[in-house]
Each structure stands twice: as C-alpha cells, then as structure tokens.
C-alpha cells in the first residue's frame, strides 16, 4: 500500500489499527507454528540419519552376499532362483498428522519369508541363495523404513519453508507497511487539527 493512496480519515485509522492488531496476532501464531515444526523436524532428522546409515550398511552387505552367490551358484543359478520367487512384499500406507502436516505411515508385511515360502527348490540351491535372499529382504525392510522417514522429512521441510516465508512476509513487509500508514494518518490528522485551530484563532482575531 503506497502512502499516497491512503485517505487520512479517522475511520481509515481505526481500520488500520484493527488490521495491525490482526496481523500481529497472526504473526505470533505463525512464529510459534514455525518453531514447533522445526522441533518436530529435529526429532525426525535424527531418525533419518540412523536409517540412512542402516540402509547403506545393509546395501553393502547385500551386495557382498550377491557376489558370493554369483560365485557359488553361477549367474544362471541365481537368476533362476530369483525368477521363481512368487510372494511379493506388501506395503500399506496410512497417514498421521504432525502439526497440520499429513505424513505417511508405511507398514510392511510379508517382506521376510521363511525358507519354504520363497518359491525356489530347497534341494536344488545352496544355502548361499537363502542368505542372499534374506539379506535383500532386510534391505527392503530398511528401504521401507527410510521411505517413511524421508517422506515425512520432505513434507515437514516444505511446510517449514512456506511458514517461514509467511512469517517473514508479515514481519518485514505487511506489519511495517501498516504501521507506516498508521503513522502517516496520525500525522496528517494532527496537522489538520492544528490548521483548524490556527484558522479559528485568525477568525477570532479579525472579529475582535
């Protein structure tokens, strides 16, 4: 709002005062929301770091097991076993609410399978295949955990960013402009009052 657009009237002043009070209240609430979100974010951050580390570790061990399996069984043997696995891991996504941010809660089932549930023949393959499958199943579990946490983090970060932007807009743009306008109107009104007083005095002096 540019200063020249403002009408220096008393009703405008009252409106402005109301708007300032509202903006300040909103600003305080948004600031609290931002702080709360950042606190939540710190909690998730710790978990995210842990799961990331866990994920990388499991990936490395799974790769190592795969190399062993390839050596022992041959590439064809591993492939044959892999293509005969039937049961698919199942994931369910529910949602929960963190300070107004809807985040997913991923639940997994049937990731880990028993020896006889995998689908390939037990006699035809060595135990190396079983161990490789197990390590990859663990890897998938780690992936599911970290997917949940990383999605939560992404959503929290988005919310933090937009809240921060709103807080800053109020603090550095909206409230200063409104107070400036209020001061301008006050100044103009005072000026007009003084003019009026002076005019009255002049008229009185002439009449005497």
């Amino acid at each position, binding site marked *: 709002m540019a200063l020249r657009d403002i009408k220096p009237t008393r009703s405008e002043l009252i409106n402005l005062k109301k708007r300032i009070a509202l903006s300040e209240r909103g600003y305080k609430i948004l600031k609290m929301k931002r702080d709360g979100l*950042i606190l939540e*974010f*710190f909690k998730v*951050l710790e978990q*995210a*770091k842990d799961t*990331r580390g866990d*994920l*990388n570790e499991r*990936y490395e061990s*799974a*790769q190592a097991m*795969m190399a062993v399996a390839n050596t022992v069984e041959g590439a064809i043997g*591993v*492939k044959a*076993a*892999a*293509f005969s*696995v*039937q*049961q*698919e*891991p199942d*994931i*369910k*996504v529910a949602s929960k609410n963190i300070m107004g941010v809807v985040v*997913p809660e*991923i639940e997994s089932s*049937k*990731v880990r*399978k028993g020896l006889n549930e*995998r689908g390939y023949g037990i006699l035809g393959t060595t135990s190396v*295949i079983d161990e*490789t*499958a197990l390590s*990859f*199943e663990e*890897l*998938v579990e780690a*992936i*599911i955990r*970290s*997917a949940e946490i*990383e*999605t939560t*983090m*992404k*959503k929290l*970060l*988005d919310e*933090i*960013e937009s809240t*921060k932007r709103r807080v800053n807009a109020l603090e550095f743009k909206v409230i200063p402009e409104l107070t400036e306008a209020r001061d301008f109107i006050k100044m103009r009104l005072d000026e007009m009052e003084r003019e009026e007083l002076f005019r009255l005095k002049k008229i009185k002096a002439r009449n005497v």
Partner: protein
Amino acid sequence: MEIAVIGNQEFILGFRLAGIRKTYPVESDETLVAHINRVLEDPAVGILVLQSGDLKKIPRRLQMTLEESVKPTVITIGAEEGGLSMRERIKRSVGVDLWK
C-alpha cells in the same frame, strides 16, 4: 502398494530374490528415463528404488521431479550421494546445514 526397482541387471536381481516384481532393467540412458517415467505414472507404486549413480544420468528436470516427489517416494541407494539432495533441501528450508 508396491515397490519398484530400476537399475542394472545385477542390482535388480537381488530385489527379485526378495520378491519384488516391478523391477526394470536398464540397458541405456534412454531406457532409464523411459522406465522412470513409466513408474511415476503407475499409481500402484509407493516406493521407487534407484541407484544413486543412475540419478546423475537423467535430465536435470526429471531429477528435480524425483527429489520433490512424495508419491512415489524415491529412495536412492549406493554411494554416499543418497543424502545429498536432502542436504540441499534442509539448507534451503532451515537455513543451516544440519545433515552431517
């Protein structure tokens, strides 16, 4: 919901062993992009697993889409780069580099 895996033959083989059906082998950069687009359009996929090395091969625009994507959630595994995009985002949103 399902998990999808895109990567080279060796990479996806292990995931097949864990029972994941939606595995897409990558032969060239073009097939990589085609597969990623296909998975992004698939409503049944909840988690997409990629190799972090492959992430560098795709166009910048698609990379951004993957980084921002929530459904499906994209998880890259492999070398340390995994947390890099997250690190950038934290820096941008919070203003401090907290990912160490």
